């Protein structure tokens, strides 16, 4: 090929490359800039938050956050949120992981039916379950309790827990377990000595995922709790009357753990979904 025909091609490739990089940067900004605005508002005094026009640099004033912390019921709501999320995390892993193990290790009659049940839950608007459960919980005395809400959140998180742990267990060759059996381990021994250490980071990731699901859930939380509101439910309930700076500080508190958690599980995010597809 001659230089004359080469040049425009290289030009086209170079400009294509710039377009590519520019779009990547643009899309990153699309995600990050709104978060930055929330950040500015949170770290500004209530007066600044309600004033106009706004600066584009945070003034690092903790007035809004202090107001948030001092707002009636807010700290309790935060505490409830953490409690529900932790309960959800524990229950969904304890209940979901054995099923994930069974799916990855055994062929049994009804396996497909069971998988269907799991996948079915994902095709339903689950928060709606809160409606009948609200009635049911009053009957059994679970109404307006952290545990009752955690049960509903566990229902939301369990399909993910099962599918994620299924993919994690499938990643551990069965021969490792078999080797342990031939070397003097019982089934349980092989599981705790060999499988568990290998799978712990992944289990942690799926536990964190369950935490985030519960932490973010609004509808069921709002329907099922009255006195013991979680943070999202509390914010939702007070949306109409609460001042802007309270909303933004609350939103910020909601976002921060999510940011950290997604960072912690980023390695597993894709592996988890890769298997869950099938």
């Amino acid at each position, binding site marked *: 090929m001659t230089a004359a025909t080469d040049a425009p091609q290289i030009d086209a490739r170079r400009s294509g490359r710039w377009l590519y990089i520019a779009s990547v940067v643009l899309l990153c900004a699309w995600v990050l800039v709104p978060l930055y605005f929330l950040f500015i508002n949170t770290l500004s005094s209530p007066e600044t938050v309600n004033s106009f026009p706004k600066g584009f640099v945070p003034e690092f004033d903790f007035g809004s956050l202090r107001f948030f912390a001092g707002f009636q019921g807010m700290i309790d709501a935060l505490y409830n949120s953490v409690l529900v999320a932790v309960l959800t995390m524990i229950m969904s892993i304890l209940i979901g992981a054995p099923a994930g193990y069974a799916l990855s290790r055994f062929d049994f009659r009804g396996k497909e039916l069971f998988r269907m049940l799991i996948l079915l839950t994902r095709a339903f608007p689950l928060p709606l379950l809160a409606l009948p459960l609200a009635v049911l919980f009053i009957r059994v005395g679970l109404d307006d309790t952290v545990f009752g809400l955690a049960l509903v959140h566990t229902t939301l998180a369990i399909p993910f827990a099962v599918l994620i742990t299924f993919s994690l267990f499938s990643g551990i*060759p069965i021969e490792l377990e*078999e080797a*342990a059996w*031939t070397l003097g381990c019982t089934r349980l021994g092989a599981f705790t000595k060999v499988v568990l*250490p*290998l799978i712990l980071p992944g289990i942690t990731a799926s536990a964190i995922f369950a935490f985030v699901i519960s932490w973010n859930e609004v509808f069921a939380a709002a329907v099922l709790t009255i006195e013991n509101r979680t943070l999202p439910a509390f914010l939702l309930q007070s949306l109409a009357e609460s001042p802007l700076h309270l909303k933004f500080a609350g939103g910020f508190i909601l976002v921060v753990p999510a940011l950290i958690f997604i960072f912690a599980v980023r390695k597993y995010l894709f592996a988890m979904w890769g298997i869950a597809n099938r």
Partner: protein
Amino acid sequence: MAEIQIKNVAKTFGAYQALHDINLTIADQEFMVLLGASGCGKTTLLRIIAGLETATTGEVWIGGRRVDHLAPKDRGIAMVFQNYAVFPHLTVFENIGFGLRMAKMPNAEVTRRVERVASLMHIEQLLKRYSGELSGGQRQRVAVARALAMEPDVILMDEPLSNLDALLRLEMRAELKGVLAESKTTAIYVTHDQVEAMSLADRISVMHQGKIVQAASPIEVYRNPAAHFVASFIGNPPMNFLRAEPAGSGKWKVAGETVDGPVSAATPLQLAIRPEDMRLADDGLKARVKLVEPLGAHLLVTCDVDGTMIRAVLDSDLTVKVGDVLTLAPQPDRVRWFDPQSTLAVA
């Protein structure tokens, strides 16, 4: 003492019968190779002996003790897996010592045994490493060392060399043979590689479609295959088969020639002869050369004998061209006969 007895073992997976009524006795300290193509049931049989699979029917006895209801850990066996199964979260030392720790052996004894087998397998310098830092060959050594450290009555190996490259496989094969002979354990070794089987085994069990077709010493399996399958599976290139028509009183017509054969049969048989057991002679089968493959040490010639393709291994000094007609004489004491109906050997 660890004689292994397999009595009437059968295994079905759903509608598929993987093993048919297997009976086999393996003597104490014997090196038994289960040889067969993939899907013949050899690995299933090994896993039943190990306790990783349950037989549908039948019994497994190890050292005079019935074990088929016992968990793998209670059978006095150790196993080497095809993909090594070296625990990735443990060091080589802890891998080799894993079973010893399970048996609650004192630390000093664990260290002594690990170091002994590590030096036996030449991996002393790797003891602190993790499996991710090892090559395939090194992992293989760890897997064998881990099994040997248990000082088991029986060591079971499932295609342990199949994931290594050719040169390493040759080296490990020789080493395995030495180490196992010294350890005086009974060994069962599964492979699809007939050369591996011939070189390692005291006895070979050739398996086909869930049955043991022949269990005998390597040379016996090679020289006197009990069935058509064994004859065509063992040897590279495999045995040649030619149709033989009865001509009365121990005489047989093969490709127009008359050959001495079994007196007992009166229906057509197959004459079988290994490619290397044929000589050029004045009197014999007329063979038209179709293909000549010089292999260095010898010449592999494919010829047409009365419509049947056969192969002959000839001296590499000979000049043979496609289209030549050779006269090939089977060595009389190496000729074997098979019944095409039953596929079994005929005396």
